[in-house]
């Protein structure tokens, strides 16, 4: 069963082919790594998948549904959630509220119910709080629920961003360098958390990462991108021993 199927996705910026004929198939429940040197177009792929950029060419299918050209919001509703390379939290809101923003479309009540504190407000808020705390517990953030997001240490901010993305109930989770700036111990812990959320929430994961230890350690398949073009794609041991890949990373 394919969770994500991308065919010939391409975009160029002013003549530069940032991503050229990108095709990938990710099976349900798979943990896929997307690697490549700086400027290879990895984040651009994420931006294309989440509708931040509209592709010049190509198609994106999520769980069999064509989501090409949809807006970011619609794509999130269809089941893709993401984190950002440069952390984008709601800085002036509490940790709990950040996750509750992630639950925005899962638990709904009207603005009027909120303003006049109708029963649906209390009922829904209670459910939201319970689920938000459940998610925070997974990331060991529940003790900091009332802390302002900007006051969290860096590593926890990265985790909170994943928690928020997870709260939207995605089928596919895109993680953009989740371990960036973390020390080896934190990275280790993060790897465990990623494995755990995949099992617990049955979510398919595509992640961009520079930390080869993390990629080789948890990814079942790896896609290597260089200058917007596929360089290699397959099982970790095959990809990482591919001479082309080594050349791209280490230079001639």
């Amino acid at each position: 069963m394919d969770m994500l199927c991308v065919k010939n996705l391409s975009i160029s910026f002013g003549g530069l082919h940032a991503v050229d004929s990108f095709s990938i198939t990710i099976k349900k429940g798979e943990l896929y790594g997307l690697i490549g040197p700086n400027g290879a177009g990895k984040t651009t792929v994420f931006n294309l998948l989440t509708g931040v950029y509209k592709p010049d060419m190509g198609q994106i299918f999520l769980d069999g549904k064509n989501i090409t050209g949809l807006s970011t919001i619609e794509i999130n509703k269809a089941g893709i959630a993401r984190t950002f390379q440069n952390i984008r939290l709601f800085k002036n809101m509490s940790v709990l509220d950040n996750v509750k923003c992630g639950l925005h479309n899962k638990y709904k009540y009207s603005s009027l119910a909120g303003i006049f504190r109708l029963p649906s407000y209390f009922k829904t808020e209670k459910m939201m709080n319970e689920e938000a705390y459940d998610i925070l517990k997974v990331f060991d953030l529940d003790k900091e629920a009332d802390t302002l997001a900007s006051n969290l240490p860096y590593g926890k901010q990265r985790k909170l961003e994943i928690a928020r993305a997870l709260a939207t109930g995605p089928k596919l989770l895109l993680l953009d360098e989740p371990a960036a700036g973390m020390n080896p111990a934190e990275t280790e812990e993060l790897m465990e958390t990623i494995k755990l959320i995949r099992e617990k929430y049955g979510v398919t994961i595509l992640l961009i990462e520079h930390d080869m230890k993390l990629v080789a350690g948890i990814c079942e398949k790896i896609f290597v991108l260089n200058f917007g073009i596929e360089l290699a794609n397959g099982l970790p041991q095959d990809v990482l021993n591919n001479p082309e890949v080594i050349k791209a990373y280490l230079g001639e």
Partner: protein
Amino acid sequence: MRFLSYLIEGIRLGSVYSIIALGYTMVYGIAKMLNFAHGDVIMVGGFVVFTVMSIWGQSPILAVIAAVIVCTLLGVTIERIAYRPLRKATSLAVLITAIGVSYLLQNLALLIFGANIKSFTSVFNLEPIRLAEGEISISGETVVTIIACIVIMIGLTTFIKRSKTGRAMIAVSEDKDAAVLMGVNVNKTIATTFAIGSALAAVASVLQFSSIPSISATSGAMPGIKAFIAAVFGGIGSIPGAMIGGILLGVIEILGRRYISMELSDAIVFLILILVLLVKPTGILGKKYHEKV
């Protein structure tokens, strides 16, 4: 014929707006703040000329020089005392402070000169130019204003492109931190910007109040707002933009006033501004805003 004389009137008003707008746009481009008190600096310049000429009975040239000096010093002082402490604060805090400065200047003028509107003696003593057998008459003030505007425009562009200080200004406006690393003195550069902007305001005040010709404590506010809008119209931060925006605004205002409605001319100007921003959200010559994801 009549249209032509309205057009010239519009260009005159637009030239004044342009000169004021240059001050707004430079300060915005470099200090990233909306200097709401800029309009009131114009008013101060006008009162200096008024004092030197009408009260002390000195020559117009002396009055203009005095206005330029006072406004320049005032601009630098305001920046030093009120804005510099807030350089790293939120832009909203700086905006409110600028509003405070604006109130301060207006009320000072009110205390010194009273609430009455004073008649202003034109600093220029020029014969109007008559064209097309006297059907079109262009006043001396108009001619001087348009020439001054062109000269200032060329001078300022050359200064910014060629001089060391000018290039430092561009550097600070692009990236303050990088400019510091390149050895640019940011405080000095910003102070210079305020000095130039305020000196231009003094020139604008002479041109504007000579044409009206009257002055009061609140006379600077509306031209200030209009010039600010002109700067946004053209794309704030852009010097040719301030020029184009100013002239366009002046022409639209005068044509609107003459052909549509005296009372609605301001509304027309503002409505066109909103429409322009809807089509081009960063003004006519403004840089396109792009957020990297």
